[in-house]
């Protein structure tokens, strides 16, 4: 099995690190993983994205044409990546700031009100974990325990105290994700 995922949003939203945690989680499950970011000069509010591939076989190309899963966190990214989700694939987006929602009917679309939830939790840092929770709910790519292991691995020691908060955020994300059907 191979799952090709794009995560895209504004720089600063934690797009790259969400991808990193996903990749680390895959690593904990002995999967093959690849993580390829859009990179550049400081993103300065521009868009950022990362392609994460989890696979049981060696991964040939870290760059792909189409995605099994697209996680979309702002309007420009939605426009850019919605067309590249594989038929029957998954698109998850946070409706905050989205003025024209997705329209495809040949894919599964979900919303996660992660920004609002994080604001309510008064913890914007949890935002990307909430999104990740949503993904794991609908596509249990990796076990939660392995996500936590991955997180532990990817965070410097001094941040390990934040682990419980992150776990809560993931669980919260699993709760709030909702299916969306374009009109």
């Amino acid at each position: 099995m191979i799952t090709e995922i794009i995560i895209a949003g504004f720089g600063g939203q934690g797009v790259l690190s969400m991808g990193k945690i996903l990749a680390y989680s895959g690593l904990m499950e002995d999967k093959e993983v690849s993580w390829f970011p859009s990179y550049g000069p400081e993103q300065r509010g521009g868009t950022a994205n990362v392609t994460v591939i989890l696979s049981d076989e060696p991964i040939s190309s870290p760059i792909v044409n189409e995605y099994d899963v697209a996680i979309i966190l702002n309007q420009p990214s939605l426009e850019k990546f919605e067309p590249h989700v594989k038929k029957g694939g998954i698109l998850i987006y946070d409706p905050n700031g989205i003025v024209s929602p997705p329209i495809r009917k040949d894919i599964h679309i979900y919303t996660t009100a992660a920004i609002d939830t994080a604001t309510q939790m008064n913890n914007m840092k949890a935002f990307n974990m909430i999104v990740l929770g949503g993904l794991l709910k609908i596509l249990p790519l990796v076990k939660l325990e392995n996500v936590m292991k991955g997180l532990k691995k990817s965070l410097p020691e001094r941040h390990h105290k934040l682990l419980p908060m992150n776990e809560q955020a993931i669980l919260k994300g699993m709760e709030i994700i909702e299916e969306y059907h374009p009109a």
Partner: protein
Amino acid sequence: MSEEKEIYLLKGNEAISHAAIRYGCDGYFGYPITPQSEIMETLMDEAPWETTGMVVLQAESETASINMVYGGAGCGKAVMTSSSSPGVSLMLEGVSYLAGAELPCLLVNVMRGGPGLGTIQPSQADYFQTVKGGGHGDYRLITLAPSSVQEMADHVALGFDLAFKYRNPAMILTDGVIGQMMEKVVLPPFKRRRTDEEIRQQCPWATLGKPADRKPNIITSLELDAHKMEENNLRFQAKYAQIEKDVCLYEETNCEDADYLFVAFGSMARICHKAMEIARSEGIKVGLIRPITLWPYPYKVIDSYSSRVKGILTVEMNAGQMVEDVRLAVNGKVKVEHYGRLGGIVPTPNEIVTALKAKFGA
């Protein structure tokens, strides 16, 4: 040690830094430039001067960096630098000096799109610069083209070892894809740095201070007497011929029954691998040759297929550079075409398959 066999998830750039420390690298000298600044940043973060004693210095420019490499290499130390295309161009006088003074060292070019300031996106347009002659004069760089993060790590030791074996600079020629992507990687075990005494033995030419019992060691690329300079050059050429005999790394995949071959290196080989899978799934028998050393170039292995396949497609992120070497390899025996994307665009597997069909009616 089990800790050392631990699997890491690292960027290609980071893998180079960790591998360098573990190799017992003595010094890194560099200047920031995207997409490779993580190499120096990782080293600065690891602070190996506190552990192995490795020196890490941010130089004032690439010109300074490469000349620091020259100074360190002249002492027989295992030293390196890294940069990306425009920065590497600034190093070329120094690279020619390194070759002319026969100094072992490791250079890394994480290529980005040119010409000029260009773009920071991945490219392979410095192939000619690296394997034909960026700097002036007849010289060669042992050139390694990793196509995975694991190879980024592995080629550090390989590059240094070859460099020291032949007293010649080695270059890891890679690009923004491999430099920036994260993959699993097994890092090599830690080796301690060589002592000065070991260097004196292994590199009797090194300038470590002249003891009473030997002549002065002189690191120079100068020889105003043209006859002697020719002798130097003949010695270099003989060495290059020896390296060509000894060293030639490549990877063949699905070539035995292939009607068409992709030839691609580095990140493009990864993408061609996927394109090969797609083509095979459509019934087109495609194989892939991935040169791992770009110099010495695997002319012979490519030529060995020249009367067995119907066509060869080189895929490069440039306007057609390695394709010349493939043509030189087959010397007219089979049609060789080039497919490339430019200026930072990474071709997708699908478009490569399409290109194959278009060029060869496959």
